[in-house]
């Protein structure tokens, strides 16, 4: 199945929800999905991402809620397949660190560093940004219902 250009970004965003464990609103809230998809295309070409997107769209997903709560067996198979290991790792690192780690290694932008999901994942904020306020470090850590 040929993916239409207009759908491609949306599929990438949905796949990103599954891979990162962050909701679609958090993904969209970064404002970075378009830039990240371009980064992937520029570094890897479009063939591999398109193949991955195609296989991903064949996995039945009922609603957005399901994306965030469960990883079905088919997703596990996809993630662990030798063919996609590299690109999947790169997508996760891109979202978590705002950084492309490949032949070249670079942070996409100041914004991408600050929007890195790694900081949210550990219950903190990016070092040097999104400051939580005076004295907050003395409070008990937030607990997240995930």
């Amino acid at each position: 199945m040929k993916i239409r250009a207009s759908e491609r970004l949306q599929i990438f965003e949905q796949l990103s929800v599954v891979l990162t464990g962050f909701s679609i609103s958090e993904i969209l809230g970064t404002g970075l999905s378009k830039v990240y998809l371009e980064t992937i295309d520029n570094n890897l070409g479009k063939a591999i991402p398109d193949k991955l997107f195609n296989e991903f769209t064949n996995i039945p997903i009922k609603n957005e809620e399901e994306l965030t709560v469960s990883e079905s067996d088919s997703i596990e198979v996809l993630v662990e397949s030798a063919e996609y290991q590299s690109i999947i790792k790169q997508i996760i690192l891109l979202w978590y660190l705002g950084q492309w780690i490949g032949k070249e290694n670079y942070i996409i932008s100041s914004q991408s560093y600050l929007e890195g999901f790694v900081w949210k994942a550990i219950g903190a904020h990016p070092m040097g940004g999104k400051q939580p306020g005076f004295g907050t470090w003395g409070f008990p850590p937030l607990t997240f219902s995930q």
Partner: protein
Amino acid sequence: MSEQKKYDVVIVGAGITGAIVANQLAEKGHKVLILEAGVKKSFNFEDYRAYLHHYYKNTIKIPNSPYPQNSNAPQPLVTDVEGIKDGIQQFNKDGYFKQFGPAPFQSTYTRAKGGTTLHWLGTCLRMLPSDFKEKDLYNSGKNWPINYYDLMPYYRMAEQEIGVSADVDEQGFLGIEFEEGYVYPMNKIPQSYLDKKLTEWTDGAQFTYENKTYNYSVVSTPQGRNSSPNPNYNNGEGYQPVGAVGNPDLGQRCEGNSACVPICPVQAKYNALKTLKKAVDKGVVIKEQCVASEILYDKKTGEVNGVRYKKYENFEDLTSGKECNYTEEVITAERYVLAAHAVENAKLMLASGFQNKNIGQNLMDHPVLLTWGWAKEKIGAFRGPGSTSGIPSLRDGLFRRERSAFRIEIGNWGWNWPTGAPTTELQEGVSKHLFGKKLRKYMLDTVQKEFRLGFLIEQQALANNRVSIDNRYRDALGNYRPIINYNITDHEKEGMLAAKQFSKQFFKTIGGEDKTEYDPDKGGFIEYKGEELWWQGAGHLAGTHIMGTDKSNSVVDKYQRCHEHKNLFLVGCGNMPTMGTSNPTLTIAALSFWAAENIDKDLNSLKK
């Protein structure tokens, strides 16, 4: 002769010590010029923000990562110290320092307007009274020609200038005294949740070592970062926190950006730009992109009669290998001050042919033994200033006859320093094929329990640990690159051994899990008496032109004036004959106020 000179004082270096001397002398009506080697920067906040964006975009987030390399005034990087190969420490041959080991010198500094206070942590501990007379008390190390009580009024000035936050009634340990009624400018920075839990978990417990017992008391650290002002400061006058230079409404309080090293985004943490701006407003002139290359002096009298410097227009990345264009000029004044940093001061004097044999010797640092582990529950790592508390009980004792004392710093940023967390954990998680919610849970569970201890080991001043120069090693402007010979002794290794034992016991006491594991191939790894040890640099480079009683044992006298060059004063960590166990910036700031007072008196006697 004085009529022809445009300036009373020329200062080399626009870091904290140069800024304080300049500001104090300008206050007294003297004409002051500062030569700064770093790239020209305005006091506009946007210039500072550029550093921040450079930090965000740098993939390697080391202390100098916000401050671009500059071939005309290169700076050392922690990454210049490479691994150990076949038992030999390796160094980046293109790094600024030319290191001959045998141990790696792992500390760095920043060559930019504002100096290394741009990336300091902000710790503002006073030295202990015993640190000033170690030779007398412990037959180890050296004595200072001044004592704690001589320095007390200047500590007060330094605490005002930097804007130190602390509660005075917590700070009078191990002999530290304050004038009656003294309070710090601002209330203490709130202690981290980690600090509070460690206090709770160590309550009543003791550490026994060498048949002595020590308490674990976790004490809030005085810090040069803005907190709530203390209304009782200065006999009830209070204190107004100083915000960001060029954006003074910003940075009135620490906001918990968790990036003090390498850059506070809002300048709630003091940096020397704040003092420099005040100095410039009083008429001090800063000549930027001017690298001092030689101190000119009368070979008979020793009197300094000028500073030669190289002024450059453009700068290239350090590694470009491109030649840089510059013009040479000489500036003269009545009095001269070298405030260019311990290594640069020594290098400049050696390059000028100074004869005092102590110049460059006694290079010191605080080798920092790092240990890390998990607390028994989530404490919320990566929040707040890098460190808000320490454990001071092992900073002094008769054991200093035999081994180094140390200060224990509690780190709030998980294992960021020793292992590169949280990136390391992320890569581990991803390589285990974790994704989605499982990856998030893995990250939260591993990182939220993390913390590390840093043991700042006191290092003794030794002649063989030194900065020197050699014609073969020069930078793009033709100035010398510092050559470093450095080692640590059994005295320090015994201190590290004690620190390691403390750490093991500490993790047991708090019911945590010691996860310290050293990589034998990493710079700073050693094995001593069957124990694996690993240390890093603290950035506390000191001792290269120590103060003392005469030229046989020192470079400067107690007034911070060169024994052999009466119109030349030196300031900074280079003057320290012992390191003690406190981070040195507050002490050198205090010494700079003292030096400025002496220079003022000296200039006034001239003008009479």
